[in-house]
């Protein structure tokens, strides 16, 4: 297993012409950037939707100028209707979870850097790779098509619980073609992810260069490798689940619909299905999906932190084994989303223990980071600040998981803003911090230019303080019993909580606004940034041994040979306090 494999000659010829170079490219680096670009479009769309939601929650009758142009029925005169609020909510969740949190840290950065970090010239299957991106792109188009069809986007949330999602137009607006487009989009997305995951696994197993044993792979390569194994199993379940949902909707089957339902005064012509079956299938995917979003970020942040601490982690192996344990345990915990769903209450306890147990490897990872900071020579830059911010968010989002993992407490907190605060912090914000850290760190390699550090730091400070201002109060609201997925708070007990909602909305506008600083920095630096050297951070892994940006075949036809573990920092090398992985120098 530890034997390295000499890779074959490059599997495709140098690209020629604009289309082959930049659009239908077989080059993993171009494909990685395409995934990243798609995620960038999706994240700004998702953010705009969250702004509209936050606006509607605190100023429900105020017009949003121009919104009626997007949907004259959803926002007549620019005022968002309750059903359109749910459409925004559904699309926000779907865009963010699938097209941002899965695309950027895993498919985007993974595509770009996994082959380089193991010394390969490309992915194992470049054509599959191209296909996986374009399939994902089609999935994106199908999803956003829901915005412009007369039915509008679905209103059943990103979890699309049946039978609301399965019975069609009788159940409400957006549940005819809108919901069908959602299910088709996610099914297509699954195909893209399955192809991508297979490719990552094959590449890692087969294309490691000479000397690149498993334990010499950088932590982020490990994270992408573990994530691809999780993705392969998770999306393989969500795909048939979406197909069954489509059959229920279009072919009259009843996988998720029982008999005797009366919707809009019509007795539905279905019998024998189970709504809980959808929940089981969805969460069997849905919980591992959390780790598909977060593990690549754990890998990226470890990589960035080590470089900026100028010393190796206390133990990279322990982090790798902890990530594996999290991946393994992620298959036994899906039921913690369903404690009050009506499933057998004994199974709730069985799902609770592995959920609580995940805290142990997650704590180990955090303690290794903290313990490694001791005695470091920590360099502060935008990349390391976002990495440190990630550690803080990972802790904050993690501890709230402790509450929700216990069925008895979940009786009270389930479906409240506490849950929204928890998953936004640990899965949303933390993973985004990982993506941002990776962006500031790898942008020089990917574009050949440096990003503006001052703008990067400004971006960090507003985002760091802003996200805490948004998501920490969610927990307090949840504890006071504030229910989620409400387009307006008509409950008697809500009045005293409204000032908190106002504060959150304002924080969301400011924090969202700061993301335009990032966007500007990204575009400006791409064209006007300072020329990046080959190795601006004095880092050790293979991506820093080649020009910025790398040539189309990564290593210029050479096959690097690996002599060291990935993180030889704090040692005396000929270039300073580090020795590169492919340097024959003795350490």
């Amino acid at each position, binding site marked *: 297993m530890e034997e390295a494999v000499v890779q074959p000659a490059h599997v495709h010829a140098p690209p020629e012409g604009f289309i082959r170079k930049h659009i239908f490219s077989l080059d993993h680096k171009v494909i990685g950037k395409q995934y990243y670009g798609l995620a960038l479009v999706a994240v700004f769309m998702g953010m705009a939707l969250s702004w509209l939601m936050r606006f509607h929650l605190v100023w429900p009758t105020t017009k949003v100028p121009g919104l009626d142009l997007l949907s004259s029925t959803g926002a007549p005169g620019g005022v968002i209707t309750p059903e359109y609020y749910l459409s925004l909510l559904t699309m926000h969740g779907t865009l963010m979870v699938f097209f941002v949190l899965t695309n950027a840290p895993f498919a985007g950065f993974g595509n770009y850097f996994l082959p380089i970090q193991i010394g390969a010239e490309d992915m194992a299957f470049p054509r599959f790779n191209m296909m996986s991106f374009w399939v994902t792109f089609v999935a994106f188009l199908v999803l956003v098509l829901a915005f412009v069809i007369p039915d509008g986007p679905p209103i059943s949330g990103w979890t699309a619980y049946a039978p609301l999602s399965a019975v069609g137009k009788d*159940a409400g607006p957006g549940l005819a073609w809108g919901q069908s487009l959602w299910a088709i989009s996610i099914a297509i997305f699954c195909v893209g992810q399955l192809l991508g995951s297979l490719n990552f696994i094959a590449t890692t197993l087969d294309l490691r260069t000479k000397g690149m044993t498993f334990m010499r792979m950088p932590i982020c390569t490990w994270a992408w490798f573990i994530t691809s194994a999780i993705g392969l199993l998770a999306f393989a379940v969500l795909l048939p689940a979406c197909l069954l949902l489509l059959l229920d909707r279009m072919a009259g089957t009843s996988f998720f619909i029982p008999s005797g339902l*009366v919707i809009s005064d019509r007795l539905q012509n279905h019998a024998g299905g189970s709504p809980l079956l959808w929940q089981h299938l969805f969460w069997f995917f849905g919980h591992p999906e959390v780790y598909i979003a977060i593990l690549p970020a754990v890998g990226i942040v470890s990589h960035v932190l080590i470089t900026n601490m100028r010393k190796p982690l206390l*133990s990279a192996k322990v982090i790798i084994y902890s990530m594996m344990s999290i991946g393994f345990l992620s298959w036994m915990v899906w039921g913690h989303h369903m404690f009050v769903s009506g499933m057998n209450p004994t199974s709730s306890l069985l799902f609770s223990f592995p959920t609580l147990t995940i805290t142990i490897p997650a704590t180990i990872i955090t303690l*290794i980071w903290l*313990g490694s900071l001791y005695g470091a020579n920590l360099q502060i830059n935008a990349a390391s600040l976002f990495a440190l911010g990630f550690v803080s968010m990972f802790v904050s989002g993690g501890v709230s998981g402790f509450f929700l993992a216990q069925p008895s407490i979940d009786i009270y907190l389930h479906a409240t803003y506490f849950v929204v605060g928890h998953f936004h912090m640990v899965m949303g914000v933390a993973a985004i911090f990982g993506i941002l850290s990776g962006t500031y760190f790898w942008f020089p390699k990917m574009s050949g230019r440096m990003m503006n550090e001052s703008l990067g730091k400004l971006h960090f400070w507003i985002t760091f303080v802003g996200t805490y201002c948004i998501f920490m109060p969610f927990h307090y609201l949840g504890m006071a019993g504030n229910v989620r997925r409400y387009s307006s708070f008509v409950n008697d007990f809500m009045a005293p909580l409204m000032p908190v909602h106002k504060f959150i909305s304002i924080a969301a506008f400011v924090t969202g606004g700061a993301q335009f600083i990032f966007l500007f920095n990204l575009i400006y630096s791409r064209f006007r940034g300072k020329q990046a050297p080959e190795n601006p951070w004095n880092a050790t892994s293979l991506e820093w041994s080649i020009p910025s940006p790398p040539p189309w075949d990564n290593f210029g036809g050479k096959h690097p040979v690996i002599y060291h573990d990935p993180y030889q920092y704090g040692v005396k090398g000929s270039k300073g306090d580090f020795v590169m992985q492919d340097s024959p120098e003795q350490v």
Partner: protein
Amino acid sequence: MGKFFAVVLTLIALASAYPIVTHMYVQPVDISTHGHAIDEQLSDTMAEAGFAFLGAQLLLAFFVWRFSNRKNGSKVKHLPGGAKLMVATAFIFVGTEVLALGVLGQKAWAEVYFTAPKQDALQIQSQAGQFAFYFRYPGADGKFAPLHPDKIDEGNGNYFGLDLANDVEARDDIVTAELAIPVNREIHLLMHAKDVGHSFYVRELRIQQDFVPGLDLSVHFTATKTGKYEIVCTQLCGLGHYNMKAYLNVLSQDDFDKWLKEKASEQ
């Protein structure tokens, strides 16, 4: 700038803990016999999670303060004890916490789900549909008449689909839009979904349970304080989800009997 990060993070951590420590946001008053167990579990977890949260954030802040932007050429040091110490700490502290909370938490869960309702518990049926709750009391014969979904006719007030023309048992069933219950008497709530998934959530009662179409679910509870409390739907059920609510009216036994009699006469 590392020191600035440390200061900002410390302030964030302390500001986050402040509303909890000062009890600015706590769960509303508990009116159930089982709620204390949930509340205790929640407060134990808060203590442990709060300790972990503050400990980790402040340690992160301290290390960043201490070890950032040191003089050029500063030699790096390694934590005594290394990774083994970290792994052992995680296993001992978090492992114990996991076991303790997991085991203690079973008690609260068991009170709600692993005990059968008493023989004399008052059975009430609740039906959730887009976007209203309705409640049914069995009437003088003590029996719930069977439901016929095809006979649901909301325009004529037949929310449950009772066969009033042919079914004698159905005629004394009492259907209401409010859930009135006697105080200090166990209620066995039978849950029926008319169309899509819904949920029954009363914050003060510490009860939340989904209505699942096609599944006969039930919960049982005893309310200990009279008063009017909101029942809200917590399972996304369509465009009117935010507005799907009813009231739980906890009455003295005498008042409840009067209320039920009055409702029976209105049927």
